[in-house]
């Protein structure tokens, strides 16, 4: 992996980590636990995938495996939500009726 690819990978993983942080910071006890686990799994995967090529370039396969594993776990946690079609919050909200 070239230095440029390692740097781009690191910056992309930083972006994923920051996005997960921004979601986790607004999650509280009222949100379904599986949503929390989705973002924690993605954060863990992105952290490993971002740092491992920088620190141990010989273990890049492990880094990629961690990120793909985290994304897989995240998708698995979303299965229940999508079982009966698209979740209600993914649908577009109809506009107000005009008098």
């Amino acid at each position, binding site marked *: 992996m070239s*230095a*440029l690819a*390692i*740097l781009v990978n*690191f910056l992309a993983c930083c972006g994923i980590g920051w996005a*997960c*942080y*921004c979601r*986790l*910071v*607004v*999650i*509280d*006890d009222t*949100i379904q636990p599986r949503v*929390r686990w989705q*973002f*924690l799994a993605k*954060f*863990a995967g992105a*952290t*490993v995938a971002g*740092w491992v090529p*920088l*620190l141990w370039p010989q273990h890049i396969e492990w880094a990629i495996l961690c990120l793909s594993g985290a994304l897989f776990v995240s998708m698995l946690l979303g299965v229940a939500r999508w079982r009966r079609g698209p979740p209600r919050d993914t649908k577009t909200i109809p506009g107000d009726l005009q008098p």
Partner: protein
Amino acid sequence: MNPQQLDPVSVTVIVLTGVIAIDPQLANVLGPYAVIFFGAMLGGLWALSKRPPHPTSPRAEGLVFLAVSVGMAVLLTVAVVMLLGRMFSIEPENSGWMLAPVSLAIARLGPTYFDGLLQRFAQRIERTAEGEGSK
């Protein structure tokens, strides 16, 4: 110096990995702390996602909470692992696997839990002092 090493990307990678690239022995020392830091980050984020978000500045307040949780875990983990090693007769060389789960647990408990623990400890001392004073 090889001019190829002076391009910005290589310089950034060298700066990011500089300390470890220069001294592999330092990497052996920093390695456990990287594991502790990773576990503490996950525990801190877990604790952060359990509390209600700050009404005006959730990200800034969350960063402070995360910094305190991670700092606390970094400071306490090694001591707790050594203590657990003594309790369960685990050799110090074989107790490395406990670093990540212990740091995760400490950061997950968070500063709020330790605040409560300190308050209870202070109350107990007060009660003991009052009891001794009344004798």
